């Protein structure tokens, strides 16, 4: 039970510390920290548009976080969220542009999402296979695959797949687009928040159920906590490595639904940059728990967009630092609490 309490106290303490540090930095930049915080709040949760922005950003972060968290249950460090998400986004854009315009929306959205998920999962599964077959460290293989995917997408984009003299693909057909909340429900006006947020939430709860309530999840957790014992219990740890990597990659790919199908409607060079790496932080802050990831992603979404919104007063880089300090604090606090 004590360990459980620490898991709540540590993230709170980490966030508090980094906010204190940022207050100091804001003051050093010649502004009143309280005023800046207040501004930040009114321009984010305080406004409809700001809230929508946070929802939109958090959606991508939740999925990027899951991409790290699920493999992490097996002590695998998936650094490949970037590449997997990029592969997903690019294939969703291609699929959406190539579908015949009269495809019904349900089919079009499903097909594009499925192609994104498949692309993300395939990239991750390649790392999983390298691990299972040759024992290659997944950290190295996922990083290398990031480069490979980036290079491939860059090459294809520079070739025939982009709209001439631009760095983006052709627009996807209208029926493949996921509608924003604003047009259907009338909330979060003008913001990019769209219905793919529901995919992300469903993924969180679905994966929570899978990991903690099902037999495969039980085997998966055992393989992560104590692989040797799992082998004696007749659990095929290798198959769970593949499963976890596959699910992780699929989640990264699913972020394309939010970015491409729900927002941009095409793939543009740099669309996914940095989100995959941010997922590592999101997952760490939530101790790789599929549901706590929602809270963690909202916090990071808030810091990201909040930083942007007060960029006119203080450099937004301060909030980038806050994010980094939070993660470092988590690691430090975890180590010092659990050492004794």
């Amino acid at each position, binding site marked *: 039970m004590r360990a459980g309490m620490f898991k709540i106290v540590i993230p709170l303490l980490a966030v508090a510390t980094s906010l204190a540090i940022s207050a100091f930095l804001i003051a050093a930049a010649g502004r009143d920290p309280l005023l800046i915080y207040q501004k930040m709040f009114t321009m984010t949760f305080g406004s409809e548009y700001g809230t929508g922005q946070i929802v939109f950003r958090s959606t991508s972060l939740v999925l990027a976080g899951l991409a790290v968290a699920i493999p992490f249950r097996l002590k695998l460090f998936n650094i490949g969220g970037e590449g997997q998400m990029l592969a997903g986004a690019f294939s969703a854009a291609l699929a959406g542009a190539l579908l015949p315009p009269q495809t019904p929306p349900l089919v079009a959205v499903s097909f594009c999402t499925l192609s994104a998920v498949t692309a993300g999962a395939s990239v991750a599964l390649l790392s999983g296979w390298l691990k299972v077959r040759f024992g290659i460290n997944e950290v190295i293989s996922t990083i290398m695959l990031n480069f490979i995917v980036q290079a491939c997408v860059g090459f294809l984009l520079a070739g025939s797949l982009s709209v001439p003299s631009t760095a983006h693909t052709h627009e996807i057909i209208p029926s493949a687009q996921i509608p924003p909340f604003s047009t259907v429900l009338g909330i979060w006006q003008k913001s990019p928040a769209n219905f793919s947020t529901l995919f992300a939430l469903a993924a969180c709860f679905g994966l929570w159920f899978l990991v903690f309530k099902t037999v495969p999840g*039980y085997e998966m957790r055992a393989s992560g906590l104590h692989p040797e*014992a799992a082998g004696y219990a007749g659990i095929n740890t290798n198959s769970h490595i593949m499963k976890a990597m596959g699910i992780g990659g699929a989640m990264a790919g699913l972020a394309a639904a939010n970015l491409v199908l729900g927002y941009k409607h095409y793939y543009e060079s740099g669309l996914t940059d940095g989100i995959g790496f941010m997922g590592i932080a999101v997952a760490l802050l939530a101790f790789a728990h599929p549901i706590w990831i929602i809270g963690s992603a909202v916090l990071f979404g808030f810091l990201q967009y909040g930083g942007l919104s007060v960029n006119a007063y203080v450099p937004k880089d301060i909030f980038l630092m806050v994010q980094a300090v939070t993660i470092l604090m988590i690691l430090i606090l975890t180590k010092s609490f659990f050492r004794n």
Partner: protein
Amino acid sequence: MNTIVVSVSGLSKKFGPFWANRNISLEIENGSIHAIVGENGAGKSTLTKMIYGLLQPTSGSIAVRGKPVRFNSPRQAIAEGIGMVHQHFMLVPELSVTENIMLGDERGHLFAPLTKRDASEEIRTIADAHSLSVDPDALVSELSVGEEQRVEILKLLYRNADILILDEPTAVLTPLETEQLFATLKSLQKEGKTVILITHKLDEVLSVSDRVSVMRRGEIIASKPTGNVSKADLARLMVGRNVLLRVEHPEEKPGRPVLEVSNLSMTDRKGVQRLNNLSFEIRAGEVYGIAGVEGNGQSELLAILWGIADRQSVVDGSVMLEGRPIKGLHADKIAAMGVSHIPEDRLRHAVVPDFTIAENLIFGRHREKKFARHAGFNIPAVQRYTRTVTSEYMIRYDEKSDIPLASLSGGNQQKIVLAREISRPGLKLLLLAQPTRGVDIGAIEMIHRRIIEARDKGIAILLVSAELDELVSLSTRIGCVYKGSVRREFTAKEVRRGRSSEKEFKKKIGLSIT
């Protein structure tokens, strides 16, 4: 002879709220072999670590040769002539025997050339005087466990220690090596050295020591001349109640053959032959004991039977479970056919310490239909099963909270494994590896009773054990393995006869495994 060399009075050591040692007073006579016995966690190691300066007492005092001492580190203890051989050896495998012995006691100035040749000579002399045969120029990595231990003892003698503390020295030795060790100890005693022997093997206490002190829950319960006590007395003192040292052994009624292993050979990925035409069979309702020094193919045999052998090794021969081949199947398939396996290192291989008790009680059995509901578990069924098993095996824990297994005592964790594996539905074959290693005497009795109970229910049992005592008291038949094959098999009749003249029988087994 009767001077006191180490005297301890009112010694206590507290770890947090827990008294590891409480008000211990003890006198050790010069030139005696003094055994300290007790169950796991009784505080034997804590006491000796304080004498050796590895731990500092919370209160109380220690005197060596009448002089009060307070050691802050082993270095000071060594200066007073106290040396300790730990349970886990502290040797550098890449260095030679001489280099290891000199390490920390080089007897030269900084940057002065090492006088290795002189040291070698000295070591050879000491070794010859106490039948500690070991080549001073050999690399430690090439030595057997028994030889490593001799190096550790030589290390102490080279430093002129005359009070030697040995922590569970026989846990890793073969019967023959144990005898050799005891001969060495006797010879050291003749030279006037004092030996403090920590052990939980009562036979050894009786055969080698002059005086024995029994510890229980951090206190010394009794300290007596060994000549005045029996094995049963010691066991009772250790556990605090009467203990049945030898489980009752009603006559077995072996049925049809359950496991047939024939001409099993295995070559590992490095090309070393581990099993060589090994054959035996086990019938329903009998215990087949496998005697042997560790590393003669026992672990490879168990790995093949349980389907977890390295897939890159080459395995020939056949393994049949009730006429169906199981060689090459995975562990889950083998388990589903009614096989249970209790591995030797249970805490590492049979449980997940971070899982709850219930999760551990279904570990490896989690695919059984009665625990399943849809994609998940049938929680009420799992809870019911947990309650039944924990009460049957007297595993006490707080039912309301989902505490992780790691918070249970080692003994209770062992019981969880035993309970889970023996209660497997449709169990036909039980594979047991060192079932009582690291287990207290009180719990050994319970485990042995459960094994015989399982046998009488018609389960075939394979018992791999390094304890001849255990093999003799439980087995129906005994196969002696040596270099990967059964070198000699004792029939049921021979084993039964052997139980009545145990000493000779153990000697006979000992000859067949070395």
